[in-house]
């Protein structure tokens, strides 16, 4: 008998069947991975399990006993814990207080000492390097993630669900987390693991289930899994390759930056993709933001040889520098504006005559850009907040490349984007460089850097510490420089 069994779950939203008769189970002492493209229904299924969504039909059983729908508390009390993608710590509480939130120890008065002690031992086991007395607001994003994981570990007694737990974690922490998860399996917990990163999924799983378009496609024991077939099952079609072939013929130097943030020298040539590698906190994103004028920095930036003084993004855009954020939701998309308005927002002056916008010209330009970058929507009037991650990314490309640019800075261009859409983004990058654009790609995915960058600059502790040519680049070499 399975430890946890979801049977025939169907869930519809207006206009979409998010889950169609999906069944899924976990044994005690098993790691069962759930993979699929964005929108395949993984998170929806886990939200049904967690009680956030009430399904139209189906059932959930834990140890043969039916669990109620729509009751997060009842499910947690039975020993099922879910770590969601989004962080949900209370910023002003300490790590220990967060870990014991909702299940505080003690009688009328809290037993703080015990809670701190237990929290600390959980955090140490994870190797989080976090003091249980630190307030959450003072922690870095990976540290917060660790606290979140410690919270779930402390409360899970039977089933633990991890939904993309490593998307913000640097390499060594990922290793520790996976080790921790294996230990929990050893203690007899059933574990559901959701991730976009295949190497993790392959390293850890006992079984892998593929969902596609809200349907169950296959459940395969790890021994029988083949990478190519798995990708095909996920996207429902053949992908030639994860990374399209790339032939770069770099031209003249476009960007020459020196002394940025007190220690970063960079050049990017026309038609070239330069990768910016490094661990979380090594200053990759800051470098991108400094080039874009979004944070203050000393140093000198030259575009086509001419000095650029950008005090703010407006100046950088005018000089031909565009920056596309790693956090589309928080810093990229205007969720309540429609697709068209999202595309034209940075170049409205071009569609104005005597201060008045010309809706016809604006729409036409947006339409053309949306087509050029293959933004798929139900028309320009669709709200941007309702697009998938891949389409939001293409929308941002359309926005920033509506006017001619020289340098495009892409910060984690495929974070949270599914396999099919990733390949599309890569093909677009190839097309852009063949048109002579210079691209600086910030990424924490080594495979992506190796697959797409012509040259990789590695950062450590706020400084550029080395550079590797594409032909010479290996994961080991980059990690060696980065750590």
């Amino acid at each position, binding site marked *: 008998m399975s430890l946890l069994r979801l049977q025939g779950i169907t869930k*519809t*939203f*207006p206009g979409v069947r998010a889950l169609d008769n999906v069944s899924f189970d976990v044994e005690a002492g098993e790691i069962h991975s759930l993979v699929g493209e964005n929108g395949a229904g993984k998170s929806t299924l886990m939200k049904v399990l967690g009680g956030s969504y009430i399904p139209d039909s189906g059932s959930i059983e834990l140890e043969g006993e039916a669990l109620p729908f729509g009751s997060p508390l009842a499910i947690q009390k039975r020993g099922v814990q879910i770590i969601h993608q989004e962080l949900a710590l209370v910023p002003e509480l300490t790590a220990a207080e967060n870990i014991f939130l909702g299940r505080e120890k003690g009688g009328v008065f809290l037993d703080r000492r015990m809670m701190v002690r237990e929290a600390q031992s959980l955090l140490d086991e994870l190797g989080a390097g976090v003091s249980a007395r630190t307030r959450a607001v003072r922690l870095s994003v990976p540290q917060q993630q660790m606290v979140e994981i410690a919270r779930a570990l402390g409360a899970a007694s039977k089933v633990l669900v991890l939904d993309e737990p490593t998307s913000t974690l640097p390499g060594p922490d990922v290793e520790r987390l996976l080790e921790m998860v294996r230990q929990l399996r050893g203690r007899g917990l059933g574990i559901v693991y959701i991730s976009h990163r295949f190497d993790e999924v392959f390293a850890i799983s006992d079984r892998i289930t593929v969902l596609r378009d809200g349907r169950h496609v296959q459940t395969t024991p790890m021994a029988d899994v083949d990478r190519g077939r798995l990708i095909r099952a996920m996207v429902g079609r053949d992908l030639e390759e994860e990374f399209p072939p790339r032939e770069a013929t770099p031209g003249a130097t476009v960007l020459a930056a020196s002394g940025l943030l007190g220690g970063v020298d960079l050049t990017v040539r026309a038609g070239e993709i330069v990768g910016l590698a490094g661990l979380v906190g090594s200053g990759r994103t800051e470098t991108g933001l400094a080039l*874009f004028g*979004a944070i203050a920095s000393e140093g000198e930036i030259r575009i086509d040889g001419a000095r650029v003084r950008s005090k*703010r*993004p*407006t100046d*950088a*855009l005018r000089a031909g520098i565009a*920056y596309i*954020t790693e956090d589309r939701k*928080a*810093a*990229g*998309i*205007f*969720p*309540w*504006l429609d697709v068209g*308005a999202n595309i034209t*927002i*940075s170049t*409205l*002056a071009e569609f*104005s005559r005597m*201060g*008045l*916008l010309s*809706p016809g010209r604006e729409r036409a330009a947006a339409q053309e850009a949306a087509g050029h970058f293959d933004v798929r929507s139900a028309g320009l009037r669709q*709200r941007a*907040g*309702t697009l998938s991650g891949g389409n939001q990314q293409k929308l941002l490309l359309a*926005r920033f490349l509506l006017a001619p640019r020289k340098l495009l800075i892409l910060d984690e261009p495929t974070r949270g984007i599914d396999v099919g859409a990733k390949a599309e983004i890569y093909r677009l990058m190839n097309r852009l460089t063949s048109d002579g654009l210079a691209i600086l790609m910030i990424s924490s995915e080594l495979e992506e850097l190796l697959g797409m960058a012509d040259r990789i600059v590695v950062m450590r502790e706020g400084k550029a510490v080395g550079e590797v040519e594409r032909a010479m680049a290996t994961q080991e070499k980059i990690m060696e420089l980065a750590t």
Partner: protein
Amino acid sequence: MNTRKVMRFVAEYGIFVALAGLFCFLSITQSDIFLTERNLTNVLRQNSYTVILAAGMTLVILTAGIDLSVGAVVALSGVLCADMLVKGYGIAGGLAAGVGLGALAGLVTGLFVTRVKIPPFVATLAMMLVVRGAAMKYTDARTIAIPADVSDSFARLSTGITPVLIMSGVVLATWIVLTRTAFGRHVYAVGGNPEAARLAGIRVRRVLVCVYAACGLLAGLAGVIVASRIGSGYPNAGELYELDAIAATVVGGTSLFGGRGSIWGTLAGAFFIGILNNGLNLYEVHAYDQMILKGVVLLAATSLDLWRSRDS
């Protein structure tokens, strides 16, 4: 699922349906009084100040801000305008002084909000105290009568359909700014996602300062019209007007979280509340009950906004 669709429709267009429904109801049940030209003109005129203030408030709330100082600005600009008339600067001088003062007050608020980063609620609360206090001090808490030589022509600003025409002009101008200019689009963008706006190359602080200045300017304009209406500069004028403006904006569907709303919604919101008042008066409902009912309407509108923000 269908209730969801209905809710969405209500959240999007509910205020227009409610306004039309209320109008029809009163037209049928109170046709002999409600539908008279006199009553309708009165309703339009009485609510024109609220609409003018609410147009500015809509800009501010679209950026996820709020302006509590507009009522006080109405008083000070009215007082200043009256004093200019007393000192013989003429109607144009009085109008310029009143409107200019409002814009200046808004500009200062905007600078505090963007440069010192004081939350709009506190910054405009402080501005409300400063401006109201200044109006009292300026007049020694007395009213400044409009001098006889200009009183007739000055009164024309607030009689007949003049205030309604001014209101219409303000609404149209706001509509054009919001839908047909880069600035208007930037207002929505800054309210919907300030960090994204900054990274899209929008001068966020400049947009915010302009929005507060515009709101102050419109409050100054309303102040001059109010002074014309009561025939004097009165330091207690405009009390609680800020609440009417906020209520009209929120009932009209503009989200307090910013980034979502329209001037037509605000217009409908203002007239929904105005006609509701009128109808309740016709039914001789007690003033206290009217207040309670208005509070309930405001709660309902805000609940809908919250529900919509969570939806999707």
